[in-house]
């Protein structure tokens, strides 16, 4: 019986490992292709297509991305600041909102939950939003405009609320109250500690959202020194293809732009840093996925 079990497990493990290994390779393959293409000469990409090992090695893609190193670094700075401040503030607000909304003694919790939920279904649309930001709040060309819209994402609030509800039993809150803790102490000392997996998940979502954002820059930022990284790079590509399309050149050539390799180099530059976030958050992430299951 025991031997059989062991044998069975061995085979199971072996097959599982092989399957996972293959899947990993499949997932990794496009990324390797991007990295390889970013080091390939543009001409060679157009002529020979993509290869796992660069046919003609060249750094021209990266040279184009870092053509104006000051601007790229500035954009990096803006994105980093926005991501850090936005995620910190956003987490603070959303955990508070989630905590309050799941407290059973908060009489209007359903009303407020509904109001938050309502905005995900019905919104004013782009133009009113634009007018609100530019005309009434006058947030054009400020860092605030990059942070502000993401602070209270309805979906993440609802997620947070449910996390807290499942992670923190009412009884704990009640007993804390009996011990003399006030609402804020309960929030900071108990709720926050117990819902770490939830916070990690929401934090990751939020950080990704801020990191990948380019649309707000595109709408509200005119000053190139406040462009977010994604927008700055996206814009480089757009300008390149537009100039090529328009034939607006007037004799002074901007040089043959290595479009393909630049795109790839950009992807590498952009995804690199955020990739490092995953290992740190991952262990909470796994816990977060199982927490509901254990409770049943």
């Amino acid at each position, binding site marked *: 019986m025991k031997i059989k079990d062991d044998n069975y497990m061995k085979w199971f493990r072996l097959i599982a490992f092989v399957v996972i290994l293959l899947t990993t390779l499949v997932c990794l393959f496009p990324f390797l292709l991007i990295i390889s293409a970013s080091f390939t000469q*543009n*001409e*060679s990409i*157009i*002529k020979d297509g993509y290869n796992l090992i660069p046919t003609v090695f060249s750094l021209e893609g990266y040279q184009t991305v870092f*053509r*104006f190193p000051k601007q790229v670094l500035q954009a990096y700075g803006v994105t980093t600041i926005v991501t850090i401040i936005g995620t910190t*503030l956003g987490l603070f*607000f959303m955990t*508070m*909102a989630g905590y*309050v909304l799941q407290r059973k*003694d908060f*009489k*209007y919790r359903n009303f407020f939950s509904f109001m938050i939920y309502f905005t995900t279904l019905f919104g004013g649309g*782009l*133009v009113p939003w*634009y*007018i609100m930001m*530019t*005309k009434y*709040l*006058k*947030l054009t*060309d*400020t*860092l*605030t405009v990059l*942070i*502000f819209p993401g*602070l209270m994402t309805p979906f993440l609030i609802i997620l947070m609320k449910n996390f807290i509800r499942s992670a923190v039993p009412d009884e704990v809150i009640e007993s804390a109250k009996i011990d003399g803790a006030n*609402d804020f102490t309960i929030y900071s000392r108990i709720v926050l500690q117990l819902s770490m997996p939830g916070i990690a998940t929401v934090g990751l979502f939020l950080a990704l959202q801020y990191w990948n954002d*380019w649309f707000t820059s*595109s*709408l509200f930022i*005119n*000053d*190139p020194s*406040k462009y977010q990284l994604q*927008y700055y790079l*996206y*814009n480089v590509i*757009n*300008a390149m*293809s*537009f100039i*090529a*399309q328009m*034939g*607006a*050149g*007037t*004799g*002074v*050539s*901007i*040089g*043959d732009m290595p*479009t*393909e390799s630049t795109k790839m180099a950009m992807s590498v530059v952009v995804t690199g840093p955020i990739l490092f976030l995953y290992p740190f958050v991952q262990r909470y992430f796994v816990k977060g996925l199982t927490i509901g299951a254990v409770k049943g």
Partner: protein
Amino acid sequence: MKKSAVKAVSALLSVFLFITVLAACSSNGNNAPANATKAPTNATNAPETEGATNEGGGTKLGIDISKPVELQFYMLGDAPKDLDFIQAEINKMAKEDLNATVNFNYTTWTDWDQKYKLLLGSGQQVDLIFTAEWTQYQSYAKKGAFQPLDELLPVAAPKLNEFVPADMWEAVKIDGQIYTVPATYKEYVTNGFVWREDLREKYNLPKPVDIETFEQYLEGIKKNEPNMTPLSMNSDVKTNLMDVFTSIAHKPIGALPYGVGVDYETPGEVYSYWGSDEHKEDLITMKRWQDNGYMVKNVLAVKDTLQDQITSGKAAAILGDNPTRYNDTVINLQAAHPDWKLGYYPYPLTNGIATPVHPIHNGYAIPVSSKNAERALAFYEKMVTDERYNLLTQYGVEGKNYEVVDGYYSLIGDANSNGFPREAMNGWAWRNPDFMLFDKNYDGVKAIFDELDKIQVPDKFTGFAEDYTSYQAEKAALEQVEKQYLYPLNAGLVKDVEEGLNTFMEKAKQAGLEKIQEEYKQQWLQYVQEQGIQ
């Protein structure tokens, strides 16, 4: 009772706290960056303090300039690096001449069309904005997005009013009124064959002057250079292949939508090009090109630009490209492969249709949201007719950004180190032929333009403003059908052309092709009649 009241109060309080924290955060954030922005905010403050000292500066003007204003100037594209400096210089002069300062804003090329819509639709202050047929000038003007300039022009900008020829003012009129100031520089964006001259010489192939000789050239390349694709093409087989092909194979008045056909010689006669024998024959030619291997099989998946395919040596010819872009390709090629050569033959020399760009192609309008229309127009006059303004905004600072060598423009340093390359502010609209400086490389384009000048004929098509409100739904449906059924035909990928064409026509008719064509025809004929086009 009491307990729940306390609870309600504390709940309310926490809500307040929440709101104040939010508010505080937003106002704090507001202050910090405001200090950080250098030029624009300073510019707003300056006129208020200095305004009083500068009265009656421009007595010649027919407009009231006693109050200082700040103009919001909008252009598409990216701002050049040295813009702050140029703006400060311009503001010094504008302050003196017009008691105005200007803020140059750029939309960047990312989602510029959406931003353009928002700028005109949101009611924020915009005093001057770029217009062109590809920014939908005609339909915006029709919808009333711009202020009519007829009465303003003689008052606020008399010099500009005279500078622009009367026929150009006439040409940009929409419903009888002027809404934009057109650019007066004449250029051609007509197409022409582009081919590898070195290969043509090597294999002794005919010089492409029409479709027949072009096809012989492609065939020669296919035979002698098996590793090359003869024709450079990409997935946009509508604009890059069919529109160009018909413009040399036949004599259409322009790239008409919805398969409507109008000959240049007979603007009053409208027929359906789609489904006609002419159309079928063209598609059979496309199929032949595809079958003979002149185009790659997966052409509908190719995203590279036509020019990139030439400079990388992948392809050997472009069906049609305009003189300026051809010139750019030549310059790029010289840098990468000095031993390769390109040849060019403009279509107009074959078909006689040498149309300079329509005045609508580059212009500046004053949106309705502007409160300083007079000053804006007066400032724009300065940009065009005053050499100091014009040279500064087109070429930057002489000695720092550029120098003039033997009458030619010469960039100092290269495009990466120079903060203001030629026409870096995208000032296509305020080009003034009297002050324009050209790079030596541009001589090739000028030579082509000179040749085309001799056989110049007017553009009869671009002034037409289509109003598709009555068939918007059909239009969207038809575009879908076109992509699905016509593109493969264009690329020569359908085995049986006749059957494929029949299927396409059937689907197009279901989508409402006949209604669209009928409406379009009516609008077009009305336009032809009103403008007296023959």
